[in-house]
């Protein structure tokens, strides 16, 4: 077993085991409909978590994503509903706003050598405040194009449905995998998480990479905000509070090392699906309060942290001796 891929494999096995356990306990649990609903219901979280994966891989953290989602959803709703823009005009503006916000945080982190934790914490308050300034009330969106987006999709046998949110998630996932493993930037992101000092000495453009990482994270959070406002057909400034923590939990459960350098985009997707599956299991159970989800997820995160500690000791502790030299 390859130690690099072990955490992802464990998350995958956990997901399958949960699915089997649910299927044994409840009829219809492992149906295509329930599984595809996992994607639809968690698309906005998954998109954010995929962005968070790159941030954490580079050794950073982004606490602003929940607020950026709220800001984007409010901006989106306000542009369409209050200012009468067409959604196709509003979406690029929202994405651009998200990108600029992330780039600004990246610049602060790199130029002033500030802790990502502090900068994105400030970003979190800032974006939430900005969202509330646009509108304190929830803005419902009524637009035929949004309805068209929500109705778009493919029916699968077994009452399964692949909607636009799922399609966007799949596109983001493919993009993320390509970025992580087939581009130079991907290598630079892993390099920063491995050892920022060495990376700089090896000629990695540290500043550009840092700014790209936070721009990517915020842009994906903005995209997630668009998905969310379509999904709920509204924009609300107080939505997505604590979502950044769910995203971090998904990344950790997905097997990415919280200190950076090791992890996979696929792991994060599996992490989000596992969290979604726990939620589904609790709603199937019926008698448990939905807050039990939090307890399960908390325990899982803790278990994965201990597991990661063990793995990372293996990654740095095990060496082939000089007997490998000819």
């Amino acid at each position, binding site marked *: 077993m390859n*130690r*690099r891929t072990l955490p992802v494999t464990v998350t995958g096995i956990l997901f399958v085991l949960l699915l089997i356990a649910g299927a044994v306990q409840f009829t219809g649990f492992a149906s295509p409909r329930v599984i595809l609903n996992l994607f639809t219901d968690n698309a906005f979280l998954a998109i954010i978590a995929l962005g968070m994966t790159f941030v954490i891989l580079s050794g950073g953290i982004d606490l602003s994503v929940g607020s950026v989602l709220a800001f984007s959803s409010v901006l989106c709703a306000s542009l369409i509903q209050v200012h009468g823009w067409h959604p196709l005009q509003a979406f690029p503006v929202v994405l651009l706003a998200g990108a600029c916000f992330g780039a600004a945080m990246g610049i602060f982190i790199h130029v002033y050598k500030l802790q990502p934790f502090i900068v994105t914490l400030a970003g979190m308050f800032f974006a939430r405040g900005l969202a509330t300034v646009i509108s304190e009330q929830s803005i419902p969106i009524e637009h035929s194009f949004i309805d068209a987006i929500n109705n778009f999709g493919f029916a699968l046998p077994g009452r399964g449905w692949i909607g636009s949110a799922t399609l966007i998630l799949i596109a983001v996932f493919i993009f993320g995998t*390509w970025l992580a*493993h*087939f*581009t*130079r930037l991907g*290598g*630079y992101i*892993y*390099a920063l*998480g*491995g*050892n920022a*000092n*060495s*990376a*700089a*000495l*090896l*000629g*990695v453009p540290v500043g550009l990479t840092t700014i790209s990482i936070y721009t990517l994270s915020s842009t994906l959070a903005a995209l997630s905000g668009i998905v969310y406002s379509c999904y709920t057909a509204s924009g609300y400034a107080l939505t997505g509070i604590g979502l950044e923590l769910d995203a971090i939990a998904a990344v950790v459960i997905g097997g990415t090392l919280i200190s950076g*350098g*090791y992890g996979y985009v696929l792991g994060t997707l599996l992490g989000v699906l596992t969290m979604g599956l726990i939620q589904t299991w609790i709603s199937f159970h019926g008698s448990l309060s939905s807050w039990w989800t939090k307890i399960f997820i908390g325990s899982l995160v803790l278990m994965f942290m201990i597991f990661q500690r063990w793995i990372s000791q293996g*990654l*740095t502790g*095990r*060496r*082939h*001796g*000089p007997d*490998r*030299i*000819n």
Partner: protein
Amino acid sequence: MSAQNAVLQLTGVCKRFKGVIAVNNVDLDLRAGEIHALLGENGAGKSTLIKVITGVYTPDGGRIEIDGAAICPKSTLDAQKHGISTVYQEVNLLPNLSVAHNLYLGREPRRFGCIQWKKLQRDARALLQRFSLDIDVNELLSSYSIAVQQLIAIARAVDCAAKVVILDEPTASLDSREVGLLFQILRTLRDQGTAILIVTHFLDQVYALTDRLTVMRNGEKVGTFVTAELPREALVSHMLGKELQAMEASRASQHTDSVDPAALQLRELSSSNGIRNINFSAQRGDAIGLAGLLGSGRSEVCAALFGLDSVTEGEIRLGEAPYKPRSPAQAIAQGFALCPEDRKTDGIVHPLSVRENMIIAHQAQRGWWRPLRRSEQNKLVADATQRLKIVCSDPEKPIGELSGGNQQKVILARWLMTHPQILILDEPTRGIDIGAHAEILQLIRKLCAEGMTLIVASSEIEELVAFSNKILVMRDKRLSTTIAGQDISENAVLAAIAEPD
């Protein structure tokens, strides 16, 4: 141009930090197809010079030329573009990437915006083949030993820029077989026309490997020599700035062999930081000098005695009782005290005042539940200030505002307050003025006369000879020679340091 086919030519390079001159007017020429050693003790300016060449620092004066064209590298990447690459003592690669990715990070072969992994792996294998390294390039770098990582770093450096390769202490973490392999590769590179500049502290390696060498001392160049024509003794005296024929200094009172059990005895001591089989004993009132070049294990002996590194083999006896320190706190409780080598980071506590710095060890010894009253503190501080002649207008001043010599005296006062039986001084006179220097030597003699045992590690042979009644010469983390009593002289110590294995 003085040298024939000089690839890298430095002329009058200077570098200052806040007015302190680190590198002063250094000329250096590095020729294609030679291995050139850069030698000097700590603080000689080697590292600064290398950082100037590799673009980490910008020089304050002088010219750097590559093939006759002046360059001014602004970053390591920039230096690389000019054909200069560097391998550092600490492997500066990424443990979390594969070997192949490490070799080609930032230079990956691409097609349609995608990295061509297959080609990259093929290239990596072919590159390592040149270094007779047959390993799985898809494995993580961290799964290989430091030696292999070091070779990978060199392979990357050579592949990035083959004109000038600079190696900063590349053998510090290698064993002798690995060193042999590295040397073989360096010789091959030399024969292919690469200019290699290597920093090392091991004289045997200098003579085994290099064609020419340059010695630096106190930021200035002492000279460039053809290695084969320079005797070892001459090299050591160039490095340390002492002539072998220097006059003998007055010596401390003769050591008398007493029948008492030794106050401190080390038997076949080995520790986790690499020192091996150290044997010596010290009586009450002895001053033991630890001599040797940088990296020879002087400081490691001090660290092992003070419980900073764990003892792996052998034993230490304090009088009759065995002593096995696991932490500095334990060592202090047993009557040890250590004034560390790096005063700025390990000695003084920056934001605290002179008074607080002085009483901190004594207070720790008493325990937090028995605080020293302020009046007691003031009295202790006043006494120590007077006794050690510390120049300090106000003991409430932050210690950082004091001169180096006075800071060192405050650290000494701190430990003397704990009434140690064995006082370890690691480089007690580094970076302090002449006046304080003499006072500290006087104090060492006085403390010995009072029956304290002192262990002093120093690169200043003259001062060791002045007060020690036994000098242990370290080499390669082992005790190479013990010189005691009448035999102590600068010549004897220098000869012992220079002696080949």
